[in-house]
């Protein structure tokens, strides 16, 4: 049974009357509200619309992860070739592999976490806003 926050919090009225909800919520709403989206409900009931929401979140997160992955690949993949080709390859290799590569790894990780958490917050807000 889907619950409706509008029932308990958002409904204006002169006297706060206690209403026992026994039936489908649409009984209390005007016909204008009939078509309102309820993403949370849709997701939980696994309707096609709910799947679309989940898919969109997955796609955003995957795109975000792949971006960071692409940066990592672009950073790391040329290095062995560079060490083999550069005139002072070995000294460069000591410096880069021994020291310089770790800070970018941590920064990439922080960047990704920030973006992933933001996507999730946005998603939660989207779902809860439309739920009202």
């Amino acid at each position, binding site marked *: 049974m889907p619950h409706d926050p509008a029932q308990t919090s958002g409904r204006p009225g002169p006297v706060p009357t206690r209403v026992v909800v026994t039936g489908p919520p649409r009984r209390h709403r005007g016909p204008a509200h009939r078509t309102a989206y309820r993403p*949370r409900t849709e*997701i*939980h009931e*696994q309707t096609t619309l*709910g*799947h679309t929401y*989940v898919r969109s*979140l*997955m796609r955003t*997160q*995957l795109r975000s*992860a792949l971006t*960071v*992955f692409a940066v*990592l690949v672009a950073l*790391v993949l040329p290095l*062995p*070739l560079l*060490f*083999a080709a550069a005139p002072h390859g*070995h*000294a460069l*290799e*000591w410096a880069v*592999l*021994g*020291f310089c*590569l*770790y*800070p970018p*790894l*941590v920064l*990439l*990780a*922080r960047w*990704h*976490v920030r973006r*992933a*958490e933001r996507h*999730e917050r946005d*998603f*939660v807000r989207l*779902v809860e806003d439309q739920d009202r």
Partner: protein
Amino acid sequence: MNESYAVAAVALVVVATALVGAFGLRVSRTTSDFYVASRTVGPRLNAAAISGEYLSAASFLGIAGLVLVQGPDMLWYPVGYTAGYLLLLLFVAAPLRRSGAYTLPDFAEARLGSPAVRKLASGFVVGIGWLYLMPQLQGAGLTLKVLTGAPGSLGSVIVAVVVVANVAAGGMRSITFVQAFQYWLKLTALLVPALFLVLAWRGDGAPARAFDEPAAFREHRTVRVQDTVEIRLAEPLTVTVHGSVDGRPHDGERVALPAGPHTVEAGARLGFPAGAEVPVAQGPGADGDAALSGSGGPTGQERPLYATYGLIIATFLGTMGLPHVVVRFYTSPHGVAARRTTVAVLGLIGAFYLLPPVYGALARMYAPELVLTGNTDAAVLLLPDRMIGGVGGDLLGALIAGGAFAAFLSTASGLTVALAGVIAQDALPSRGIRHFRVGAVTAMAVPLAASVLAGRLPIADAVGLAFAVSASSFCPLLILGIWWRRLTPPGAAAGMLVGGGSALAAVSVTLIGHHPTAGVPDALLAWPALWSVPLAFLTMVVVSLATPGRIPPGTGAVLARFHLPEEIGGAAVRKEDAA
């Protein structure tokens, strides 16, 4: 070198581990405590525990030894061990935690709903775990042997007993404290001596020979060869010889050796002049103790690029499939905490990995003859005595020895917890605490027997091979399972069998047979990740697409649970549980 300090340090670490474990025991009461520390471990404690568990014998001793033998190419190992966590964070961390499963087999079953795939995953978890445990036990044996001359298996037995006692008594809760404690212990044990060693190096006039290729003797040094080795000289070299070289006995005279291979009999002493290049050992001696010179090709010679790329793929992608790493993520309270934990882990292990290269570089200057005598894994342990000496050197050496033991104990503990969980759930009838204990004993008994019976196995090689198998079995399962709707049980099973199976076969050939000589086929066997990972992904995708009817019915709901934030996904989980 004074042994008593080192023995005291090792004993102290063992006792402290048992005590911290006992402290955890007091708060460890329920079955959930045993398996996942009741899922209440916060990011900071959990990150220290993950790092403590992850920094194994291969990190503490192996990397410096590898760098000593093979030069800076080997620094790809620590980079890969760290970057593996970035990939884990990008593709796996939060969904894995939200999957609500405890082990990799649990994940396979939750995602695909197939008992057969679950059994297969269990098999791989146990195989990878054993492959990873063996070198830990052998590293412990080696450390104790180098420090005190004790028989090689004594250290292995000590580590095995302490770990099983701790795990069986306290489970995950107690191990979490032990490992968090051991991260800081290990960091201290490498950092403090490193500071003194660098000061000693500066006091020595800061020579920069470490970065030369190949390693060379800084001063006249006499090397005693323990086992018969075949050495290869790049240039003619004049050495003083006591003992037998190339089948001819010598007694202290100077011998001019032409370039090329020479056989040095066991017990021979060679006096090298200052500035001489350190020759490359490649005989049975190198196979035995020197262990690490195995798969990468000899010193001074360029490693082929595909070997480097094979190493990169195996370590970058293998981390996410290691059983002891994955279990730790289930102890986070939620997906967001799992992500933040991973970032903290990256910082902690990144900081740690700044140190082994320092030891590797110093070992190339101050202990290059280890390449010949075989004990390259002991380079970290021997440097303080070699560079500082006296009581100070002994104390620092003891600190390193204690840290090394912490490394064996913590990684072995983590692996044992993970394996015990899988064995208890999939091989024994119920999930009770008693079965967890039986699982813990089983998890340790097999690799202990193998390491005692089978003798030496290269530390970093074996670990590297465990990474390769993990990268070609669990990495595709996790990534496709989390991000691809059309994965089917037959596809997952086929991918794991073909990828992981072929990597395992290549690993077995490498380990059983002699170390590979030059040549592409051998290198492909030694670095299977290069072809087995793409093969595993390809098989999984193709077979899944060929069996579209077998997509599990609940896939949409399962993926929703993996990806939705807890405040939304939580209700979906409850709904499903009720159904």
